């Protein structure tokens, strides 16, 4: 095997390469660890990729692409699928024309997330066929397979990745571009795409028929890997757990299921019949375990303690041994912190000095909760700072209510903050409210991605730019102020105190580029200015 045929790729990069080879016309998504690199790599490889304001919009754009008969990939982290759940559940009823593959990158162990929800529940709740790769080769293969399944049954397909699949680099042998895809073209197919009750009722029946057919296909020729071994122990597994299990118990028989919804339940039943002891090894919730038991297969699950966190070889050995003794606690490393020179530092210092009650949000600035600032009181999900802050204001005694501040980042504000502002204007608390947008000009936490407020596209070229202050004024926020945190003539603390004293609705935007992004932003601005100059020269010449 030569290196020309083999590539060492992360799971994310493998999905991107497969998307390119599958002929994806448009990739959409919202950045979120560990999924972010998929669209970035897809763009770098020459694919057309876009960041959307949030995952719901990304999935809706993709659904439009699919209705137009083109292939499309939507990427997000696990909690992003909560945001996209509304279109997902009903997209499942529709007939997609071009393949629609939704990537959910779950984060068991919460390396960089606010929860460790197991999105395999969405497969079952929304009735979406689901593939779970265990390495980059499978991530590549399953992406291509997902498009085939999606088009054959006209159904969205979920590609469920986890952190260790997304970020681990393993060897991939690619197959090359798929040929013979149809060009996008609109055809009216009203009953298949307009989900009013009259059309949705038969559509739900069609969905269940599709799933039954897919289950039969999965039984007959689905991506199932069988490693025959000793008949005393059989392991049913999927995703990253499969490689941990094969290393932990090399002598056992392993059945690795690639498509975990709908399950190839008869294949599993036959496997179970050939072994003395059957154990399901899966990360997260006991989803497969419950499915097997519901089908009457006597399967051992894992002790409850292994629901939490990632699995690894040592933990799988413990599961197989039924070991529930306390696990060794790994030594604590140095926690991350707000960068030196980060403008957020000044904001959290001021909020702390004023003894504010801070409804926080998702991003780098969540690090404001850690010492030395300890200046955040709530953090739940994207955009929650505004609603939670308003709720606190509505019921707290006045002296406390007056100290409540909602703090949200620029990318998060575009993602889920706009409706919060609408709520503030519509249902203003008696004491008013203060929302602060910490605008650092990038989606910093996930690795400096663009968003609609930066004025640049995913590939950093120039586009239209949202004005947060303009939006707030148009929506009717009473006080809208923008400050540069580098402005030494200004006391941020005094300004916040002044706004908190007013029984009015206020938006305070603190603006300073992220210290990590600043040199890049200067580079993009320079490139944009250069190209604008070139264009005006060209216009002058041609004019």
């Amino acid at each position: 095997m030569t290196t020309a045929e083999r590539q060492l790729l992360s799971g994310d990069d493998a999905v991107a390469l497969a998307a390119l080879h599958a002929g994806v016309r448009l990739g959409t998504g919202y950045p979120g660890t560990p999924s972010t690199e998929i669209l970035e790599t897809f763009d770098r490889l020459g694919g057309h990729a876009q960041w959307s304001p949030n995952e719901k919009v990304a999935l809706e754009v993709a659904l439009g692409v699919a209705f137009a008969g083109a292939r499309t990939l939507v990427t997000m982290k696990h909690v992003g699928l909560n945001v996209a759940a509304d279109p997902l559940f009903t997209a499942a009823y529709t007939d997609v024309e071009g393949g629609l593959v939704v990537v959910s990158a779950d984060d068991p162990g919460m390396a960089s997330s606010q929860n460790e929800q197991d999105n395999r529940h969405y497969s079952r709740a929304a009735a979406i066929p689901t593939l779970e790769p265990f390495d980059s080769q499978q991530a590549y293969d399953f992406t291509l397979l997902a498009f085939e399944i999606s088009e054959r049954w006209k159904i969205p397909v979920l590609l469920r990745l986890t952190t260790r699949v997304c970020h681990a680099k393993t060897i991939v042998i690619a197959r090359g571009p798929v040929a013979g895809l149809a060009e996008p073209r609109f055809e009216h197919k009203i009953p298949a795409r307009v989900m009013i009750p009259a059309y949705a009722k038969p559509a739900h029946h069609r969905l269940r028929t599709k799933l039954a057919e897919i289950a039969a296909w999965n039984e007959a020729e689905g991506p199932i890997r069988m490693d025959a071994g000793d008949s005393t122990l059989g392991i049913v597994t999927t995703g990253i757990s499969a490689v941990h299990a094969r290393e932990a118990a090399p002598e056992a028989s392993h059945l690795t299921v690639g498509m975990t919804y709908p399950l190839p339940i008869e294949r599993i039943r036959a496997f179970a019949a050939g072994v003395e002891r059957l154990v399901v090894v899966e990360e997260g919730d006991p989803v497969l375990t419950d499915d097997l038991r519901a089908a009457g297969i006597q399967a051992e699950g894992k002790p409850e303690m292994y629901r939490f966190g990632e699995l690894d070889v040592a933990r799988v050995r413990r599961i197989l041994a039924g070991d529930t003794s306390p696990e060794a606690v790994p030594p604590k490393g140095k926690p991350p912190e707000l960068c030196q020179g980060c403008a957020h530092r000044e904001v959290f210092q001021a909020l702390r000095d004023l003894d504010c009650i801070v409804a926080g949000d998702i991003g780098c600035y969540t690090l404001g909760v850690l010492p030395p600032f300890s200046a955040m009181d709530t953090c739940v999900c994207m955009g929650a700072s505004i609603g939670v802050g308003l709720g606190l204001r509505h019921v707290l005694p006045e002296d406390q209510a007056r100290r409540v501040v909602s703090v949200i980042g620029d990318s998060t504000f575009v993602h889920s903050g706009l409706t919060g502002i609408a709520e503030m204007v519509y249902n203003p608390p008696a004491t008013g409210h203060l929302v602060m947008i910490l605008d650092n000009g990038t989606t910093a936490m996930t690795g400096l991605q663009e968003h609609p407020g930066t004025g640049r596209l995913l590939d950093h070229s120039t586009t239209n730019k949202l004005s947060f202050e303009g939006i707030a004024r148009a929506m009717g926020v009473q006080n809208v102020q923008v400050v540069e945190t580098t402005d030494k003539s200004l006391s941020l603390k005094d300004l916040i105190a002044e706004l908190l004293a007013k029984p009015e609705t206020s938006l305070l935007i603190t603006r300073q580029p992220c210290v990590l992004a600043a040199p890049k932003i200067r580079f993009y601005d320079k490139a944009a200015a250069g190209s604008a100059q070139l264009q005006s020269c060209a216009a002058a010449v041609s004019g």
Partner: protein
Amino acid sequence: MDKVKNIVIAGLGGQGVLTASDMLAEAAFRAGFDVKKSELHGMSQRGGSVSSDVRYGAQVLSPMVPAGEADVLLVLEATQIEINRPMLRAGGVLIGPDLLPEGALKNKKSLNVALLGAVSTLLDISQEHWMAAIYANLAEKLHKVNDQAFALGREAALQGSIAQHP
């Protein structure tokens, strides 16, 4: 070679831990081995602890080095040694930032490559693959200074300044 080689690289965000593990994984990849490399991204740029696992051999299964099974632990920052020491197997080798005397490196940022030079004396990967992997992960203007760093680290290791874990 039947046994999988396990190497853990650790340090703080911004020190080049992930670059070093990319180089090592690529060197093993170029040498024709099965390779897996894994770490947690996300917070690494914010100055926190970072570590990365590289495993190679005829066939690698899990991408994560099990605790107590690392053949080599390479640490770029002294404060990170103790928290990562449980990764080493008995008889495994620790390579720390004190391998080279203060001021030995022209550019402090090439410490990661210097320590890879030391690691290279313990692994069955040829010099040609190492250099190709290092160059592939660095801008061309940095090649020379990293050549020197790699050679310095290698030399220090060959002179016996690395120790086995008891």
